């Protein structure tokens, strides 16, 4: 195995080492949050959290648990760095993103610490590529303070029910309005575009609905341009949990099952569209 013979040994100390026999497990999750080029990685003994933010209104987190990796070691309590996600994805798919059956890219990832580049050793069919990606100063991340005790409404849907809806969203509409209610229309997605309005209603007893816990009627609007990137995560996922809290903040949690049957999560937080709510008051 060429990876084991690679030089990250010889006394050098890495704060983070991880190896994975199929780099696609990592790249597909990263692609689900790739709507901005810069991501902040935060590693603990539990795994890596990759955070991407946009417009101070949207935050996406991809959680890659330690169990996904064949080897995962963090020497410090936590390791944090910022990285260009586009470059990282390009490197991870350097042998091609389409997978032929039976071929997979093995990955070993090492990081020596603050100021050092992230090193990737990628191997496929006996060919090894070494990538060094410069890391950047981590920026402060948004704290959405989305606490499960403040959750008002929660719905778990099978993703297929939402996929078509998101694919057909009227992009001439500035906002997507989400209504969740214990009464009719239960769960409604609405857009207001140039051509008119469109509503999509899901009854609570639909067989796509895995869980329906709505306590009060809530109608909030979210910028459609902010929600659209979550389609990437939706496409990979099998289930989605939609939650709103007392402030109208939206949390979308996507459950993603990879080829080996392991489960990962990608989470999106989004602020409601303020202007509209003020106008409504």
């Amino acid at each position, binding site marked *: 195995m060429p990876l084991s013979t690679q030089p990250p040994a010889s006394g050098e100390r890495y704060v983070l080492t991880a190896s994975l026999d199929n780099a696609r497990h990592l790249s597909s999750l990263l692609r689900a949050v790739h709507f901005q080029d810069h991501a902040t990685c935060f590693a603990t003994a539990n795994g890596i959290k990759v955070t991407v933010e946009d417009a101070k209104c949207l935050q996406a987190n991809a959680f890659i648990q330690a169990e996904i990796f064949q080897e995962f070691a963090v020497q410090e309590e936590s390791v944090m760095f910022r990285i260009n996600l586009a470059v990282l994805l390009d490197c991870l798919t350097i042998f091609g993103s389409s997978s032929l059956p039976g071929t997979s890219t093995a990955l070993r990832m090492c990081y020596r610490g603050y100021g050092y580049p992230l090193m990737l050793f990628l191997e496929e069919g006996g060919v090894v590529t070494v990538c060094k990606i410069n890391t950047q100063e981590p920026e402060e991340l948004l704290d959405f303070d989305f606490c499960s005790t403040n959750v008002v409404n929660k719905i778990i849907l099978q993703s297929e029910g939402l996929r078509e809806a998101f694919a057909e969203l009227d992009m001439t509409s500035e906002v997507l309005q989400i209504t969740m209610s214990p009464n009719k229309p239960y769960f409604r997605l609405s857009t207001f575009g140039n051509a008119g309005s*469109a509503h999509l209603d899901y009854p609570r007893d639909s067989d796509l609905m895995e869980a329906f816990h709505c306590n009060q009627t809530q109608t909030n609007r979210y910028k459609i341009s902010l929600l659209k990137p979550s389609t990437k995560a939706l496409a990979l996922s099998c289930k989605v949990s939609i939650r709103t809290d007392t402030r109208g903040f939206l949390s979308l949690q996507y459950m993603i099952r990879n080829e080996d049957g392991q489960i990962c999560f990608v989470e999106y937080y989004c602020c409601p569209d303020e202007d509209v709510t003020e106008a409504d008051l």
Partner: protein
Amino acid sequence: MKCVIGGGHLRVFGRAIHAIARISDEFWFDPVEKGLALRSVNSSRSACAYIFFSSMFFQHYCWTAGSKSCQREKQLPLPCKLIIKSVLPVFRCVNMLERNVEKCNIYTNINDRHITFQLICKHGIVKTHNLTFQECDPLQAVFAKHMCPNVLKLQSRLLTDIMIHFPMSQEEVTLAVTPMKVCFKSYTEEDTDFSKAMHTEIQLNPDEFDYFQVGVDSEVTFCLKELRGLLAFSEATSTPVSIHFDRSGKPIAFSIEDMVLEASFILATLSDIENETASEQPPRFSQGQDSKSEKTSVDRDSNSEAIASRKPQWNGNSQNTELVAPRSPLAKQEIKIIPKISNKDTTGTEGTTITETDDYTMLEARPTHFDYHKSKLLHTGIGFCTWCITCVVSYLYKYCIFQFHSLFFGAVSFKEKDAINHILHSLATASDTEEDSVNMQRSQVL
């Protein structure tokens, strides 16, 4: 108006919308007592589609506004003009529709000027699209199919198999008939580089047709784009296609008829320049449903609104057409030079010239692409001299009149008719000042 389409028929309806989308950006949704008609005419008036679904096509069909308590005016169904772009997403993936959608309700709400498409899908999901519409009388083609000397009828499958041999880049095809044989061949413009062009020709025996009647030997050239749409639609209904046509320059009609629906697509054909001068015909206008619309004040108001909203466009046209200079002998000289310039070199100027020519030729029925090429090369060929340009414009105008005289359908309302008369009148009396304004405008563009 309220109608319900069952899951099985939804594919047919979806295909109809897609076929109509090939014609134009807009279409009319025209409910009448016997059923629902969809109509469309393209902006250059060279193609027109009409698809009629009889009330039997629907699970439920009610053409009036509904309950008996309604006021009189509400009981009149209103033809509504919809933007096809907004309707297409409703029927985006036609094959998926059949699988996922159990039924589709379509109803109009006159009070808030909306037409609602409601799809009842699997898993209890309900999709509701409220689309705004504009009330206005539809354009109708004036074309007597039964007067055509040539009638061919064939299975849509066969016609599809013929058309599949023409590459997607092929814009026009020629249909040549004699009592002995039928031939579909690719149409190429005279100035095309033949070393690069591919020529396809498919010959058919009269036996291949379900019905074969050739009164006149003729060769007609028409656009393929619209026909492809009709073929996709007829495949969903698996009905034979009838082709009615006359000599070149007269429109050609492709139609299908079924127990529950009928459709006809009428396309302009190219005509030969040589034998056209004599047979020029004045445009004919049809008055959509005018008598009906005058019955109610609501209708009349909305009509005049619609007309008013369209009026600036016509004024714009008349302004542009007024700019056409009197025909001078110089223009003819120019014409002779022009065909030598290869239109391959001129594509760069497309952006500016197309919009202009579109205005000039909009009044005539003509195949779109054909003109563009010609006019493109006209403009670039003589860009150095503004005087020449005016001549060319006048040539272009004449050219259109003579070559595409097949004005088989016209305006909707009296007001528009007047507008056209006005344009034609002003063409004849273009003054010097207008010529000057042409020069100025042109030089800016060029």
